[in-house]
């Protein structure tokens, strides 16, 4: 029987209820048992008491886009190592992408992930299952059986499902099971050979660009089909100002749609690629500063629902290549919160919107009970020191792969403690 836990004198921020006040939280039997304003509620004499004076108590973060290497590429990342990185980053639940070897397109593999996560992970791991068999974009998977096995959503991960006919049937069938679809947006033709944002920088570097339209055309198509089918649709990650506009327009008439943005696209721009720095080779690509600002504005306005890390561990072999030949992706579980807090410190976005996009919004999209501080909800919580200064050192990061876009970055703000179902899984 776990002891009662009391966190008191905390600045409790709960985006789900728009609450931001000093108070205390009582945790019993892995759940939030009481929340009080001001003084702590009465508790057993042997309760663990944490004085959180000066700290923010927020729901544990939910990261909707995480790649691991398990099964198949455990040298990159295991579920266990990813969970260490997650705990250190304040992420108490993450959705793992189906792009593994084998690909998660079968109920038995969903069960495998859940079993392995239970045995090895400190945080909650939520498997996403493939939309199409073998991620080939042709035949849809067994949505019903996958849902029963525990899949939380369907996505083809790094692949952008591009056939309008397949999308339509996938959307309709997913709506049938009330399951969300997450689609990565990259037109196979327009984005085919591109490796960076299209524009002057790409031209100067002699690299093939990816135009905004490689994202906006599939986004608009998906949103039209989403309306047609009534599916809960999530544009996995948008990167351009034009996509924010398109989302805004469609949201006016469809409340079942949402979209996400990678913390990289919120924090960085194409100039960070500099002189062929392959750690900044991402999909979608880092775009212009105007795009970045539009994404931040879209986040503040609620047009963008979710911030994710896009955590994608890649080993050195894949990254130490000429730019066009290097792999995409960067790790991010451990730095997502701190990077997002930069937007707060710079005055670009309010704290509530930032936290909402990593807690209650993803929880609502995925139909989770977590992501909120509510009596009866699982006690997945984090304590944040919003001004804590630290410098990212790749050797200190928990991920097995070190392809971070924030090496040597100076941050203000860090998670101090992470709790999963009332259990402390990380302490700074």
């Amino acid at each position, binding site marked *: 029987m776990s002891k009662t836990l009391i966190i008191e004198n905390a600045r409790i921020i709960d985006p789900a209820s728009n609450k931001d006040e000093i108070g205390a939280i009582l945790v019993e039997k892995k759940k939030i048992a009481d929340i009080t304003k001001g003084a702590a509620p009465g508790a057993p004499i042997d309760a663990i008491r944490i004085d959180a004076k000066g700290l923010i108590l927020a729901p544990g973060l939910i990261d909707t886009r995480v790649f691991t290497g398990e099964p198949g590429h455990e040298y990159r990342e295991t579920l266990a190592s990813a969970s260490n990185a997650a705990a250190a980053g304040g992420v108490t639940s993450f959705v793992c992408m189906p792009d593994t070897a084998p690909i998660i397109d079968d109920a038995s593999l969903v069960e495998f992930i859940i079993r392995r996560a239970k045995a090895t992970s400190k945080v909650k791991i939520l498997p996403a299952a493939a939309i199409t068999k073998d991620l080939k974009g042709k035949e849809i998977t067994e949505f019903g059986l996958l849902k029963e096995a525990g899949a939380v959503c369907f996505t083809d991960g790094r692949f952008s499902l591009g056939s309008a006919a397949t999308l339509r049937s996938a959307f309709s069938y997913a709506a049938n099971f009330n399951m969300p679809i997450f689609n990565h947006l990259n037109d196979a033709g327009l984005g085919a050979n591109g490796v960076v944002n299209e*524009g002057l920088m790409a031209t*100067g*570097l002699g*690299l093939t660009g990816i135009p905004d339209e490689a994202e906006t055309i599939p986004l608009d198509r998906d949103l039209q089909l989403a309306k047609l089918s009534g599916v809960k649709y999530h544009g996995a990650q948008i990167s351009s100002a034009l996509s924010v506009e398109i989302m805004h327009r469609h949201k006016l008439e469809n409340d079942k749609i949402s979209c996400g943005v990678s913390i990289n696209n919120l924090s960085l721009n194409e100039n960070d690629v500099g002189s062929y720095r392959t750690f900044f080779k991402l999909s979608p690509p880092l775009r212009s500063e105007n795009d970045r600002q539009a994404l931040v504005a879209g986040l503040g306005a609620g047009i963008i629902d979710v911030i994710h890390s896009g955590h994608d561990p890649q080993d050195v072999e894949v990254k130490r290549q000429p730019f066009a030949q290097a792999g995409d992706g960067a790790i991010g579980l451990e730095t997502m919160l701190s990077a997002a807090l930069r937007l707060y410190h710079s005055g670009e976005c309010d704290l509530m919107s930032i936290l909402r996009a990593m807690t209650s919004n993803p929880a609502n999209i995925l139909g989770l009970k977590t992501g909120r501080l509510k009596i009866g909800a699982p006690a997945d919580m984090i304590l944040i020191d919003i001004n804590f200064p630290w410098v990212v050192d790749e050797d200190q990061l928990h991920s097995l792969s070190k392809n971070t876009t924030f090496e040597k970055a100076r941050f203000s703000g860090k998670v101090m403690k992470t709790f999963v179902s009332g259990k402390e899984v990380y302490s700074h």
Partner: protein
Amino acid sequence: MSKSSEHSPNSTIGKTSVSNIFNHKHLLGIAQLNQVEIIDLLDRAQKMVDISRSGEKIPPSLSGKTQINLFFENSTRTQASFEIAGKRLGALVQNMSVKTSSVAKGETLIDTAATLNAMRPDVIVVRHSAAGAVELLSQKVGCSVVNAGDGAHEHPTQALLDALTIRRHKKRLNGLTVAICGDIAHSRVARSNLMLLNAMNVRTRVIAPATLLPKGIENICAEVFTNMKQGLKDADVVMMLRIQHERGEGALIPSRREYYRFYGLDEKKLALAKPDAIVMHPGPMNRGVEIAPSIADGAQSVITEQVEMGVAVRMAVLDALVSKGAKK
């Protein structure tokens, strides 16, 4: 800068002391050079032309030095030019044929770099199909590296030899109008030339069908034309680029025949340029695609002279980078 592109009176090649103006370890691109350094290299190259033509003994400034030519992309001409340049200066030159090497067996660029580095060369000349590959390799070796072309990024010695050729004919670069015509989007020659010519205050123009113009090009040249006739008007120099065969298959241009009709350099179009305009081409040419045979071999063509200047420029670059007096 007050000095534009005149010969420096006291060029130093052939003398015991070496100019201190050029003090880079590598030549990765024109982007790393300023106007003074460009003029210095052109002056050195001009000296190399004079010595090569005179029949006198060329000072073996690279005697005892080892030069490796590492070509991941086939290029008989450029490789031969670098080889001759190195040998004329007395270097031991080794060509690495990538097709028969371990690169073909899956070795990474970094591994190749480490292997070659262990052989202790003094300079590696690299051509690679990927933009940035030469710079990446340069970070992993202890010797000097010369970029002999990396993807669609840079080809600095080509731009230098083009500038030298122009300067010999026009006696200056400053104030000239140079029109570059062809596949600008995929051309490293175009990028390096634009950077060099802009640095030398040349009025730069590019001419291409819209499908072969990269985004943002208007920011790195003075004028952009999709109509060749307008673009050639009053040009001092017409620089034609090679159309890769695979581009002529319908994706970006419908056919070579149509390309020639609108963007091939023939007598009629050339007549719009200045009467004394020179015609250039980095080679190898597609006669009848981007250039009429009569123009390629005509009085205004300086194409074979470009090849000669290529050797001289590469001699100058190798000398500046690795001769005994070169600054590192």
